[in-house]
């Protein structure tokens, strides 16, 4: 989703009426990144040119959102690549430009926007994987019987989650599914929380990353069901475990229902995660933009044109976002655990 530009804050009704509907709106950023004041059709307000483009770092954390929006774009906090793309370092032909062009979503035409946007999120996914791997490696470097601080903290987290998952899956058979579930939880947790760090963005706030996670869960659940049950019992489970003539007659209907149910589960998982994280991203962006607007409106009578800082109105929502991120990561992994449980045979529940 494109970030917002400070120079396009609509100053009044005259600027606002120039917006088209969302379908016809031009993208909020110019295609060339080397100019500092974009000339847009509807936002020709001369007072708006005095605003900055939000490239300065904000001490309030979370990056400085450049306010205003064209019709049909959600505001977002700046992250590393957007700032780099808008900075004067980004000249055509330099190596910096090549790197930035690979990650920045708005240099190419809009039909390729999603591919490049995915590259930006892939980069932040790699950062989160690196963080998880590094912390775990640091903790387990010297496996002491009397653990140090980091090792005991990591052990506490892993043990709590393991007890939770094993309590659902059963002590005997549950251990082989633990690595996947724990990795899932840690990955999603760090991904979600990365959006709160200044100049970073959570890769789960985009649709593609969440669909990939849902697909991973789907493939793993089906594979573990197949491997544990064998193909014959797996197919019987899809038919609804028919016993008796009536159930065999109903089994095609059960097949359709079960297949639909199996397909819907990862979709609902990923949509839940995506909606929550993107919602909180947009919430943070909107409130930060509101802070800048308020500061600009307050300072305008005094005569200060260039507004580089703003009231950080989005601070309370950072805590809400941290809580929601943790809960959603937990929900995702818990639900995957429950789906694995549903694939295992039900008559062997001896805990």
């Amino acid at each position, binding site marked *: *989703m494109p970030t917002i530009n400070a120079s396009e804050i609509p100053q009044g009704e005259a600027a606002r009426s120039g917006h088209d*509907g*969302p379908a016809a709106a031009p993208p909020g950023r110019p295609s060339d990144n080397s100019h500092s004041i974009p000339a847009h059709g509807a936002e020709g307000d001369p007072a708006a040119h005095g605003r900055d483009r939000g490239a300065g770092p904000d001490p309030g954390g979370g990056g400085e959102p450049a306010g205003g929006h064209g019709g*049909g*774009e*959600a505001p977002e906090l700046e992250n590393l690549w957007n700032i780099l793309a808008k900075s004067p370092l980004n000249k055509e032909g330099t190596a910096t430009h090549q790197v930035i062009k690979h990650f920045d979503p708005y240099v190419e035409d809009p039909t390729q926007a999603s591919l490049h946007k995915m590259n930006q999120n892939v980069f932040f996914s790699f950062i989160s994987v690196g963080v998880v791997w590094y912390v775990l490696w640091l903790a387990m470097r010297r496996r002491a019987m009397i653990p140090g601080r980091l090792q005991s903290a990591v052990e506490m987290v892993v043990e709590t989650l393991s007890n*939770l998952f094993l309590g659902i899956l059963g002590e005997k058979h549950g251990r082989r599914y633990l690595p996947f579930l724990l990795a899932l939880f840690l990955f999603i947790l760090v991904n979600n929380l990365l959006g709160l760090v200044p100049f970073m963005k959570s890769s789960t706030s*985009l*649709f593609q990353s969440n669909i990939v996670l849902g697909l991973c869960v789907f493939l793993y659940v089906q594979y573990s069901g197949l491997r544990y049950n064998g193909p014959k019992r797996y197919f019987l489970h899809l038919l609804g475990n028919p016993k008796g003539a009536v159930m065999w007659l109903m089994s095609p209907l059960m097949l359709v229902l079960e297949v639909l149910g199996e397909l819907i589960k990862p979709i*609902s998982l990923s*949509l*839940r995660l*995506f*909606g*929550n994280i*993107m*919602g909180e991203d*947009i919430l943070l962006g909107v409130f930060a933009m509101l802070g800048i607007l308020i500061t600009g409106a307050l300072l305008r009578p005094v005569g200060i044109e260039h507004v580089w800082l703003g009231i950080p109105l989005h601070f309370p929502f950072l805590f809400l976002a941290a809580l929601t991120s943790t*809960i*959603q990561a*937990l*929900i995702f992994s*818990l*639900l995957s655990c429950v789906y694995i449980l549903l694939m295992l045979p039900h008559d062997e529940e001896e805990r």
Partner: protein
Amino acid sequence: MPNEAINLVKLAYPLGLGLAAVGSAYGLGRAVSAAMDAIARQPEASGKIQTAMIIGCAFIEALTIYALISIFLVRFGG
């Protein structure tokens, strides 16, 4: 379509989201009140009850989130 009609149609999304929020608020209220009753009856099981309550709340919340996502997908072309 004339401008007033377009504005009326654009009102539909927030209204729909508000309806979804009402439904999920009612469901969440019932879930949390049941959890409170259970904790009051047996305080030593509050950990498990709290976990189950959080999971149930996430399910109920997800339905409102689906409505919110539809707004994003239509309006911002995500």
